[in-house]
């Protein structure tokens, strides 16, 4: 398993090993109320076969990251204004959307949050699953249909032979997500981006879907980016985690390191807010305040208004992502006071 590296100095060393290398990505959204910087200097790498979890609350930019990679930013409101997305040595930001999509079709696949709205309601699922085979590989109708059936069986759709002609609304939520996954892995992509794949599902189903993804990964050796707001869901399958807040990655590292020894006060606050962390009936220790408005970010560190460690320095200077003293080389946090946070635990 290859390393994931932090900071621009790491680019030269890891370029060959990374499947996907995102560097200093900047994304802006133009809205009626103004221009919002949805991503501000996001960098990460994904190596073949690896699973990276991108975690964050609403508005943190985790979904935008996935959209940016797939060239799915809503046009013309959202646009990449800086940085690079290098896939297998190819800078996607420098290529026309058409080429990126073509590449995505065979190499990078995506699974979305809401399996109902992500499937076209007016086409049979078989048609939709077979579409990549027909349009990308030029297969005949019958052959593609056969492939689609195989895939549906593979992702665990019972009675796939009869249900292949059904429409999305005739399936349950979990089954729809399985169909989405079938469609995504159709052309055996090398990278699968799953954007909140289980959020709309019940817990029992959620567990099955995560298990399915893990199985598929083990089988095909593809790399995965799991985007989620739920720290628990990804914990079982991801090797690495990147925590996002207000358009930046505030902490990254091996998932156990990050969860067990958070070096950013936000990560720590998140972990402490989970009810199961507290005594039953006891008080929780939430993060104070509300998530920031991207149109009016606080100066300095965006987290400073909610941070118990904040000083004047935090209010003026944006902290760079760095490796805290005493931590391993692949654990980094974007906080001026990481050491204090770690020591406070």
């Amino acid at each position, binding site marked *: 398993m290859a390393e994931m590296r932090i900071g621009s100095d790491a680019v030269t060393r890891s370029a060959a090993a990374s499947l996907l290398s995102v560097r200093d990505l900047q994304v802006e959204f133009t809205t009626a109320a103004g221009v919002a910087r949805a991503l501000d200097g996001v960098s990460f790498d994904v190596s073949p076969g690896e699973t990276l979890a991108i975690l964050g609350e609403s508005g943190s930019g985790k979904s935008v990251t996935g959209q940016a990679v797939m060239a799915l930013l809503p046009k013309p409101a959202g646009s990449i204004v800086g940085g690079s997305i290098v896939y297998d040595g190819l800078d996607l930001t420098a290529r026309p959307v058409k080429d990126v999509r073509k590449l995505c079709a065979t190499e990078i696949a995506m699974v979305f949050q809401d399996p109902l709205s992500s499937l076209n309601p007016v086409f049979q699922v078989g048609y939709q699953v077979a579409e990549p085979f027909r349009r990308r590989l030029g297969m005949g109708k019958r052959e593609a249909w056969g492939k689609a059936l195989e895939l549906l069986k593979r992702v665990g759709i019972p009675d796939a032979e009869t249900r292949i002609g059904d429409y999305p609304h005739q399936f349950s*939520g979990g089954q729809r997500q399985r169909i989405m996954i079938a469609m995504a892995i159709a052309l055996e992509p090398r990278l699968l981006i799953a954007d909140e794949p289980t959020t709309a599902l019940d817990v029992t189903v959620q567990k099955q879907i995560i298990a399915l993804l893990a199985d598929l990964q083990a089988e095909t050796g593809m790399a995965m980016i799991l985007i989620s707001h739920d720290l628990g869901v990804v*914990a079982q399958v991801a090797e690495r985690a990147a925590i996002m807040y207000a358009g930046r990655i505030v902490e990254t590292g091996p998932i156990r390191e990050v969860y067990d020894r958070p070096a950013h006060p936000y990560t720590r606050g998140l972990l402490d807010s989970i009810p199961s962390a507290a005594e039953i009936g006891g008080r929780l220790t*939430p993060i104070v305040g509300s998530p920031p408005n991207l149109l009016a970010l606080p100066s300095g560190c965006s987290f400073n208004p909610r941070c118990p460690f904040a000083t004047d320095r935090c209010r003026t200077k944006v902290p760079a992502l760095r490796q805290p003293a005493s931590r391993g080389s692949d654990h980094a946090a974007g906080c001026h006071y990481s050491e204090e946070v770690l020591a406070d635990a």
Partner: protein
Amino acid sequence: MPKAAPTHQPLLSVSNLKVAYPIRSSVLRRIVGEKVAVRDVTFEVKPGETVGLVGESGSGKSTVARSVIGLIKPDAGAIGFNGHDITRYSPRQLKSVRREMQMVFQDPYASLNPRLTVRDLIAEGWRVHRDVVPRGNWTAVAQELMERVGLNPDYSDRYAHQFSGGQRQRIGIARALALKPKLIICDEAVSALDVSVQAQVLNLLQDLQEELGLAYLFISHDLSVVEHLCARVLVLHGGEVVEEGSVHDIFDRPQHDYTKALLAAVPVVRPWLGRSVSSSTSTHPERLTQGGTIAPNIQSREERNDIYS
């Protein structure tokens, strides 16, 4: 601890509740059958107590909540409040019950009228129940309530959309409190909130309970939240209560297969520690399961659940 159930008479007692939706024939729209949403649900909520109602989508938990608050008319069973069966109440009588029983809704966006200021949102109940607060005091009392739920009272002239999700849910709580209820029904009240904000709201709910002696009927699909907040828990599945008991019984010694499966599926934040959802250590083997295989019995349940969605 408010969780310790006081012993007096129940505030709310639901017995054999049944709610069904008619199935109509395609031509003449005659009722030819019914789809049961909730069947034989029986439970009590004592004053000051928090009762949790858990279940997956389609389990009927919201139907129970909406029947209790009177948004749905039950087909059978009784809903006792303060010892009276309110299913037999006239609209006028119900109106007085409504003061005692309030609801906090799931969606902090949809549950607040976008055309009213915070002050008017809170005062809406006083407009209906004229005797609660004299008109001249509306602003002052509304501001007091805002302060109580952790909102800046200076913002009483703002509209809901000018607040963040967590703040809106606080407005929703202030609104529910305005009529000085004895029971608040929280229907997935924190599900839409980010975890950092959810914790704030859960703390607020606990504080208010201690202070005002409120009883909560707390409905959620999130077992960790229910475990954290509730004294007693009912597990709903397919419209029926499959298991009921104290939070310890349910989470540590689940009896029903469904409860077991449900608990097993709850994601564990640090699976490598081998710890369970509960802060209390558990030895139940299901708790330690980590990803991987798909249990065949769950597969069939999923099918069943989704019929209701």
